[in-house]
């Protein structure tokens, strides 16, 4: 894969402060930040005005320190970021019923096997689910990060967002590939 090179080229324009060659995960991290900027959680998601935005990472963390680095000191709407690494799905389940405990769920590639369970776990909760494997959005995830033409693109499952009571900015939607959940008659529009 030419990814590193491509990523390196693109990384200079990416929303990143440092000039070092960034990896795919650097970009993804940036995207996550951006998503946070362009998505609105219901007020119930936060107990206080300055309650952090919690990102739960499910699965093997390929970000390394990147995500932490990128989100360090940043705030969205005055809310800092907190990253939680979930060791198991059960940890996710725990906060069930308490949506304030997590606003973003990042499902890594390694946790794809547990995808449906994860989706199930957060169904109805105002949690922005972000995945990085194909089929994530179709499966009910809200945003899926996709590598295309050596670029990081993303898909958005609008229905899922709606179901999660998340308001995704049209600006974000304009850039995204909208994913329709499969129609009952099995037709999908991509």
């Amino acid at each position: 894969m030419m990814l590193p090179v491509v990523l390196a080229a693109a990384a200079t324009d990416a929303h990143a402060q440092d000039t070092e060659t960034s990896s795919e995960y650097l970009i993804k991290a940036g995207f996550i930040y951006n998503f946070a900027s362009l998505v609105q959680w219901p007020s119930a998601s936060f107990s206080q005005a300055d309650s952090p935005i919690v990102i739960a990472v499910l699965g093997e963390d390929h970000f390394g320190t990147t995500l932490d680095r990128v989100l360090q000191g940043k705030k969205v709407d005055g809310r800092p970021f907190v990253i939680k690494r979930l060791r198991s799905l059960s940890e996710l389940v725990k906060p069930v019923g308490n949506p304030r405990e997590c606003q973003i769920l990042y499902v890594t590639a390694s946790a794809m096997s547990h995808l449906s369970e994860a989706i199930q776990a957060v169904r109805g909760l105002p949690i922005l689910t972000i995945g990085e494997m194909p089929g994530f959005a179709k499966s009910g995830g809200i945003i899926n990060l996709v590598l295309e033409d050596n670029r990081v693109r993303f898909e958005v499952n609008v229905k899922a967002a709606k179901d999660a009571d998340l308001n995704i900015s049209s600006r974000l939607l304009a850039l995204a590939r909208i994913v329709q959940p499969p129609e009952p008659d099995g037709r999908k529009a991509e």
Partner: protein
Amino acid sequence: MNVLNLSIKRKLILMTMLTSSMALFLSSASFLIYDLMSFRHLLTQDLTTQAEIIGYNSAAAIAFNDEPAASATLSALTAKNDIVGAGLYSPKGRLFAHYFRGRRTLPDTLPSCAQGNAYRFEGQYLEVCHEVTLNGDHVGTLHLQSDMRQWSARARRYATICLIFALMSAFLAFLVSSKLQKVISGPIMQLENTMKMVSEKKNYELRAVKTYSDEIGSLIDGFNAMLSDIQQRDTALRGANEQLHTRTRELEGEVSQRKQAQEELLKAKQVAEEASRAKSIFLANMSHELRTPLNAIIGYSEMLEEEASDSKDTENVQDLKRIQFAGKHLLALINDVLDLSKIEAGKMPLHLETFDVRVLITEMITTLRPAVEKNRNTLQVHLADEVSTMHGDVTKVRQILFNLLSNACKFTDHGSILVNVDRRSENNEEWIRFEVSDTGIGIGAKQRENLFKEFAQADTSISRKYGGTGLGLAISYKFVQLMKGRIEVVSELGKGATFSVQLPAQVKVEAADTAVADALINVPAPAPVTMSDRETILVIDDDPAVRDLMSRSLSKLDFNVVAVSSGDEGLRIAKEVRPVIITLDVIMPNRDGWSVLNQLKADPELANIPVIMVTIVDNEAMGITLGASSYLIKPVDRERLVALIQKHRINESSGRKTMKNARVPAARSQSAGGER
């Protein structure tokens, strides 16, 4: 073309149009500027807003590094015709996405847009930079370029409208001012017309019409007042002119009358002069004619007497003596009569010279010695020492003394005769007194009354007895009068007589006694009178010997002689000195006499001076033709020259000078025979 010299009408119209145009221009300019300025501001704002919107919309695209999306957003700008370029730049300044219209290109790096959100006008373009932010983070910069076409279009529109309006209002201003200027220019032009008419036709009755009571109105009033003034003066002037004409005519009449009178007088004078000349000639001729045969009678009878006495022809001697005696008596009578006639005719001029009285007396005594001794009288002479010379007419003095002495001798027998001559002063003047006393028969009172009258000898018997013509004393008396002296007699019958004659030591001549003709006309001299009493003769001759000779001769005749050696100098001096006469040589170097003569006669100042040509060249005709008064051939007979000068002077002086001391020298041309 000098604008200031246009007519009032044009000036007024121009002024109005200029003023209104300026006002219009200023107001529309200010409006225009204001509007365009605010429009520009508007556009800027518009563009800035655009940038904001685009920026907002493309924030996500930049953040997500989605170039196509960003470009797509930018391309929405197609809708805006005036935006020619848009560029999204990364925070580092590199071009991320772009849009442009036409051929416009965008710089690859972000041009320096101050910082953050700013705009600037670069050339014809408006550029706006806008910070694109997402979530407060500066994700990029949007740079928009607008060609301001809206603004240009607007400006153009405005300009066109303004122009049209300007033209329209200029036209309107022209119309209005054309009408309105009449208020000013109308009266002025009228005034101008009136003035023209007045000055062309010299009609001072015209008046300008006053229309308004403004400054022009008062100008018109003033003008009219001046016209009235002029009219008055003109009338007065005409009147004065008429009077002047009348007066001039009168004066002309007078002048012509006077001229006539003058002419008549001149004629009379000429006639008188002719008569006088005739008289002179007559007398001179008579004198000559009478004396010549008498001299022959006397001379021959003397001679015959001598011959007879030599041949002892005593009878014949007696007869011849009688003839002689009668002849001498006749001669004496003739002389006396002629003398008296001359005195009557005023032709007895005084020939003044300085002579020694002693010498005269001595002469007389010598001459009269026989007469003295005839009657055995004694003669004594006393001459005072102070008596030396006197200035008078020696001939006349001699005659007077001779008369007195011969009378004394005649009327005294065995008596004594005393002659006393002395000098005395009276009234600041010197007189010489001659006294002749005798112890003769004396003169009675009655006789004394008529003593000095002609033919006063009581009867012819006395002349027969004592001899003499009876005219001597009358002549002496008249001579003494001429010399402004006195003659007296003191006598008693039987006791002798004393005749005394007192004459001025310096006898003077006055023109009244001599030139009668001059006294007829007393014309004031128009020409300047010479400084000295002496008249000037100008001698022009290149020969120094001639000049010298002329000078000496003529100055002896009491002329002031100026001698020059060239014609040119002569002309110059003639003008300065105004001689009475000019003598002119013909042969001279540089300029010959003919040329000088011509010049003299051509010059009005000098043409009247008589010119006597004195030359060896015999060309009298030429001389007279050219205007010379006389022509003499060298060598010159001095007497002739002098006579000519005299003649010309008398002619000249009658028209030029008054009462002048005319020292007329003896007119020698008159007689060849004897003259007493």
